[in-house]
């Protein structure tokens, strides 16, 4: 507020109308997010401890910690959570490793072609998510393209089992889904790199590898961390891909939440788990928030 008054050269009436105008343009979008995002998240917090009840048949009608205790202490729910954490870690790191060299190429080597190349990389990300999973099913399935090809040419008699309905399939598909998205923030941070720094490092006798390791890579870290977070968080609650390509090993924390609401009909229990995810995400964002670059949009 102070800064607004400092820069405002108009009279107080002018200032008041400016304030109303700001409220006018911000009111609707902020209201939408508050009503349909923040309020509902607060609601599941209340609901998970019995502060609200009567929504599903098994609701406990008074204050209770049972849903939280149930999921924190009984197997296998925490185990599922850690399984999801492992999945998110593997997927984010794999897509980072795949995307980093390409982002480097585009930002520092490719020259004028870089934007066209970037579009070519990003297009698959903007096509349908389910269809990309479908493509992998067609590719990796027991009767899929790879297995049926290998069988036809006589290299194998039995389908390769670890290709599909396996952890491998989950990791492969999710990395595939996220790679283009990961390339973006790394590209942006490398592109804003001052090339004179690299020249200086070179002049001082550093090898290219040394320059990369002690100049380029540290300066691209904000992009790397932003990419990591933007993949890690959504993957933590992922249940579609595990269900479609993971087989028996594909039951994740997200699947536990989803089934509490569909087959299990234990909504309070599901809410407690969903709320737990919110807490986990909040901790991550608090920790890495300054790299997320969300603020710079407003400044």
């Amino acid at each position: 507020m102070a800064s607004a008054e400092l820069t405002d050269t108009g009279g107080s009436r002018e200032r008041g109308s400016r304030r109303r105008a700001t409220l006018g343009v911000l009111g609707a979008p902020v209201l939408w997010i508050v009503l349909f995002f923040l309020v509902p998240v607060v609601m599941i917090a209340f609901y998970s401890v019995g502060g609200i009840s009567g929504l599903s048949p098994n609701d406990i009608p008074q204050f209770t910690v049972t849903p939280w205790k149930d999921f924190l202490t009984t197997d296998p729910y925490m185990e599922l959570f850690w399984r999801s954490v492992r999945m998110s870690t593997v997927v984010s790191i794999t897509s980072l490793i795949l995307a980093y060299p390409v982002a480097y190429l585009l930002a520092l080597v490719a020259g004028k072609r870089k934007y066209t190349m970037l579009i070519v990389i990003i297009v698959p990300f903007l096509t349908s998510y389910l269809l990309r999973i479908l493509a992998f099913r067609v590719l990796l399935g027991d009767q899929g393209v790879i297995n049926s090809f290998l069988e036809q040419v006589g290299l194998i008699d039995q389908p390769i089992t670890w290709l599909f309905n396996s952890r491998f399939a989950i990791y492969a598909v999710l990395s595939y889904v996220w790679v283009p998205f990961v390339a973006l923030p790394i590209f942006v941070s490398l592109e804003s790199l001052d090339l004179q720094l690299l020249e200086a490092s070179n002049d001082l006798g550093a090898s290219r590898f040394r320059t990369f390791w002690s100049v380029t890579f540290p300066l691209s870290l904000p992009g790397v961390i932003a990419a990591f977070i933007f993949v890690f968080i959504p993957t933590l609650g992922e249940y579609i891909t595990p269900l479609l390509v993971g087989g028996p090993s594909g039951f994740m924390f997200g699947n536990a939440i989803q089934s509490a609401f569909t087959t299990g009909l234990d909504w309070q229990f599901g809410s407690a788990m969903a709320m737990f995810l919110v807490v986990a995400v909040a901790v991550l964002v608090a920790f890495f928030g300054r790299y997320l670059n969300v603020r710079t949009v407003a400044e």
Partner: protein
Amino acid sequence: MNVAISARGRRALWFSFGFLLVFLYAPLVILVIFSFNDREFVSFPWQGFTLRWYQQFLENPFLLDSLKTSAAIATMTSVVTTALAIPASIALSRRRFFAKGLVSGVLLAPLVIPLVVLGTALLILFNIVKTLIGIDFELGMMSIMVAHVVIALPFAILTIVPRLERIPVALEEASRDLGAGWWTAFRTITFPLLAPAVVSAALISFTISFDEIVLAEFVGGQTTTFPRYLWSQMRLPRQLPQVIGVAVIVLVVSAVVVMLSELLRRRTDTALEASTTVFDDDIGIPTNEVVSA
């Protein structure tokens, strides 16, 4: 000498680019090729070219209905999101106000929430409104649209704000000085320059909604969107070839739309840059070149 890369490193990087392209496009290309294979299972051996999967899909009323439903929801989502994103972006990039960091954080927060959480939360919200407050409505297209706007809005804002920041405020101020009201100034000066970003934002919102499955599952009630239909069919191997036919069509259409909108945005961005460089030496006085851009 190039300090960023050695000749050998350059080759390695181009190789990694080639590898990534194959990784990204091979599954999609294979999907397209096998959608023409005359076989009940989507696999080798190749048994001849056929269009029957495409034909079957055109005759499948459930599938066509689901496509229409999704198109309707995506259109509504796109209109509402863009209508909310334009004022929000103007406030974030053009105005100073109290707790701006917090407000932008709130607007962009849906970027960092697992969809299963948002789905759960909205399902509970809608049920509270229905059973505890007693306003009766059916979960369906409207509730899906409401949910989709929440996740599309941050992307729309992030598309519009950078463009807005590159349009000199001086243009709008000049028109205000010449007696235009803020609405006239916005409508005749800022908006035309902003239009390409608005189109991109609308397309991105449309794509996000058209493709979204998790929220639609949670708050969609009995409404079958295209992703929900796909989801239900993907578990039945017999339906697979036919589903793949649609998949290919949707894939190609969305890829073309996305590429066109990106190219359009890049081109107009370059035009904007070219026209606004006039301001670098002569700040504040719009010239003919600028206005005609």
